[in-house]
């Protein structure tokens, strides 16, 4: 019998993996990829709740999440391209202009 908890734990694991990716990777593109993992972890728990609570709202929200994710990727990749153009690198260690 697969319960809600199974899905939630799976979602948690996915989230943790994504988080680890964000912390350890230095390539901006890979950080963005890890962010996608986080999104999907959230999506999974949305859908799981929708199933187990009998409410389709969860699925609707997954839809919205995807839209946001799409936008995020579009902008994120554009920034990545811009960064690469000006800095010739995507290594976050070398990009530290946030500090002023």
């Amino acid at each position, binding site marked *: *019998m*697969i*319960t809600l*908890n*199974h*899905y*939630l*734990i*799976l979602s*948690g*694991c*996915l*989230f*943790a*993996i994504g*988080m*680890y*990716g964000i*912390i*350890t990777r*230095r*390539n901006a*593109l*890979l950080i963005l*990829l*890890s962010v*996608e*993992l986080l999104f*999907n972890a959230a*999506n*999974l728990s949305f*859908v*799981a709740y*929708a*199933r*187990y609570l*009998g*409410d*389709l*709202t969860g*699925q*609707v929200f*997954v*839809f919205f999440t*995807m*839209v*946001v*994710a*799409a*936008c995020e*990727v*579009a*902008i994120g*990749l*554009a920034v*990545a*391209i*811009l960064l690469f153009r000006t800095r010739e690198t*995507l*290594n976050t260690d070398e990009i530290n202009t946030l500090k002023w």
Partner: protein
Amino acid sequence: MNEAFFFYLFSGLTLLAALYVVFTKNPTYAVLSLVAAMFSLAILFVLLHAYFIAVVHVLVYAGAILVLFLFVVMLLGVGREEPASKSQRLYRIFGGFVVVGFLLEIGLIIKAVSSSAQESPTILAGTIEAVGKLLFTEYFLPFEITSVLLLVGIVGAVVLSRREQMPAEGQYLPGKAAEGGRSKQV
């Protein structure tokens, strides 16, 4: 029995793919393995009776987003990452601690709240009709707003990635010049 089998199979697959995304040194491989993760997630969605979401998920993520990633990776020709520095190793160790701690916490929380989570007696199928109805009635306004958001995203992406077009010398752009003149004054 069937459900459990498929669940364990595809959740295992998802986790493996996700781990590969995080640990591989080659960005191309990372993107491709994320595609795999998306597919297995979509199957999990199907298991949860979210048919429409599953399809959209494959179309949007695997079909659009990750292809975009792939394009960019190819375009920029990002190679392998350099070997880890000392601080990088520190990040890995402490990041590991944090992540494990986080997982444990999630487990604790799930355990704490699990008693209240009862399985719904009726199974609502996430068909196009059902989701669409909800989307276009109760969540109509947010839906419209997401479309605006998308538009903004597109415009933003275009503006950001556009190459700065320098006007050639002697070429006069009335609007821009006035703008520039004023801002200089201020």
